């Protein structure tokens, strides 16, 4: 129900539009408070190098969160993204260490392709196997990771085996903006625009708010769903290339457990787990918030182990808030209906 309304939230006079906006506003406020507090006690927190590190760390998470947001908006979930990142990172790192002359663009395309194939497998199993996305992606989380492990064994690709231009890609920048950050911004903005302004985006929202109604309304559910999983997989694959370039050392465990952070970023960013509502740029903000929390904990000299507990608490807080909004909307709708 929330979703059906969100799609027309631009209509004036609807109290909902205000409520929905507060979800992203909440994250921005939380970010502002966190940054202000941390900077007040440790001014170095806002130094150029520190901001750069935060943005670089956010980039990989935000790219994955953009794809995950699309899948979650359709009322599905993709838990395999961490394993896809690992598979793509190891594939690309192996390829680049064997063929140092390959240009960066090839690495990016190969990573995207590996991820897209993985995403397509998920999508086909969900749609045509009629297996719930949770089960499929839990299964492929195991399988893709297992494939990487049995391929890599205990082997790891070290930074000194990788060509220099590949490693420099992570640090090189255009007009002061690192490539990694630029890619993340392009991905988040691009997917946001696609979801907000294009027909296929609105169809994905419709599918999430009522799968049956979407089918009856003649939306090409199968095509859209495959597209959503393909996008999520491809972006996780792209994140794998960025991961390999940034960290330089890649073994079979790359990206282990990332799915939790990605889901957290999406949920904290205001995308409802019931599907049908939320925004992709909200998910990007969620990724930024999680990364800033991590950095702030380090700067404030708080035990790093608190980070995961805070992530968990934030997820719970976000779904509670989401539920609160849904209940309020239901109540206000009931009130309006009684006047008619």
């Amino acid at each position, binding site marked *: 129900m929330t979703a059906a309304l969100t799609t027309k939230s631009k209509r004036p006079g609807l109290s909902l539009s205000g409520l929905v906006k507060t979800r992203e506003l909440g994250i921005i406020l939380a970010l502002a408070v966190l940054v202000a507090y941390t900077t007040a006690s440790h001014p170095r927190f806002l130094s150029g190098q520190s901001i750069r590190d935060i943005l670089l760390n956010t980039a990989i998470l935000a790219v994955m969160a953009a794809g995950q947001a699309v899948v979650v908006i359709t009322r599905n979930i993709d838990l395999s993204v961490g394993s896809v990142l690992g598979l793509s990172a190891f594939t690309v790192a192996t390829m680049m260490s064997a063929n140092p002359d390959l240009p960066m663009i090839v690495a990016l395309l190969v990573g995207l392709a590996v991820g897209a194939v993985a995403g397509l497998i998920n999508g086909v199993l969900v749609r045509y196997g009629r297996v719930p996305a949770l089960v499929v992606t839990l299964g492929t989380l195991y399988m893709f990771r297992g494939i990487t492990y049995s391929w890599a064994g205990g082997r790891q690709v070290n930074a000194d085996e990788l060509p220099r231009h590949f490693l420099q890609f992570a640090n090189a920048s255009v007009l002061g903006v690192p490539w990694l950050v630029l890619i993340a911004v392009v991905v988040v903005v691009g997917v946001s625009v696609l979801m907000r302004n294009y027909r296929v985006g609105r169809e994905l929202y419709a599918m999430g708010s009522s799968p049956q109604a979407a089918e009856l309304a003649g939306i090409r559910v199968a095509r859209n769903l495959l597209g959503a999983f393909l996008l999520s997989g491809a972006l996780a694959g792209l994140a794998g290339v960025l991961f390999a370039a940034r960290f330089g050392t890649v073994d079979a465990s790359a990206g282990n457990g990332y799915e939790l952070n990605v889901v957290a970023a999406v949920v904290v960013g205001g995308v409802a787990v019931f599907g049908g509502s939320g925004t992709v740029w909200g998910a990007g903000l969620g990724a930024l918030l999680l990364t800033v929390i991590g950095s702030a904990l380090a700067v404030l000299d708080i035990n790093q182990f608190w980070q*995961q507990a805070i992530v968990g608490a934030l997820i719970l807080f976000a779904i*509670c808030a989401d539920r609160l909004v849904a209940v309020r909307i239901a109540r206000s709708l009931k009130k309006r209906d009684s006047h008619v």
Partner: protein
Amino acid sequence: MSELRRRLASWDSIIIALTVLVLVIASVGVPNFGTSRNFTFLILDLMPIVLVALPMTFIIVTGEIDLSVASTLGLTSSLMGWFWNNGLSIEMIIPLCVLVGALLGAFNGFLVTGLGLPSLAVTIGTLALYRGLAFVVLGDGAVADFPWNYTGWVTGTIGGGAVPNVLILIVALALIFGVVLHATPFGRSLYAIGANAQAAHFSGIRVARTKFWLYVASGAIAGLVGVLWTLRYSSARADNGSGLELAVVAAVLLGGVSIFGGRGTLPGVLAGVVLLAALQNALRLQDVSGQALNIVTGALLVLSVLLPNVTSSIRATWHRRRLRQAAAH
């Protein structure tokens, strides 16, 4: 006849048959698989999965899920180390850990039934929260000096033979859960909830309260497994049991429990657990690396849900065709 045929063709009979087949083939074909020493290890390895799978079966039958079990295990393991370091006696620590597990389960239950939040999202949240708290309690260190008579009991066997002590515990709990699920009105009510929660509610079943207690049970068992895990490896660590929730969910679904609720049996789940454990054990004896076994686990998980769907849709097509032919005549 049709009843018998339906029985034989049901997924849990298939999985039980498959499990027996794997056990026989492995005993004959894999060196050392059939030894009594390996039997002991096999039981010890499947202990955490089978124990956590019991309440998980109940929860999935009602159409919900609990992904936080492994983190609950880790947190109780951490607390066990912390209590021990602070001089509590082991006789006090064990019930305390089970109680903590029950409380963590109650928190899940409250969020799911009290606030009406989706269990998948809630337990992904508490998965992160409980694991995080486990690290807050114990950091990345370990506590290892637990009394040997307790650690020895968990790893020991009855009379020094092949049957591990913990098998008594597994059999006892499996019997209790099996009887409750398949021979009591409470057990029937779980299927009713899973099939249609609203209808169950209108027929007088206290849906919310039932689900709440299932989460408490799940947490308590996870706490108990946290204790057993710690004693087995003589090591209280915050990362104990990482990833166990996946193995448990895989085993339950493999055992024929529907992820949508309302369907599945405990014998099927037990077969699912044994099948997974036996396959992994046999492959490991063949020197397949532990991580590569993930492919098998993942494939089985997907197939266990995919196959019944595919066969039922093929059956439906046949049925339609027969009807059409009958109509044509």
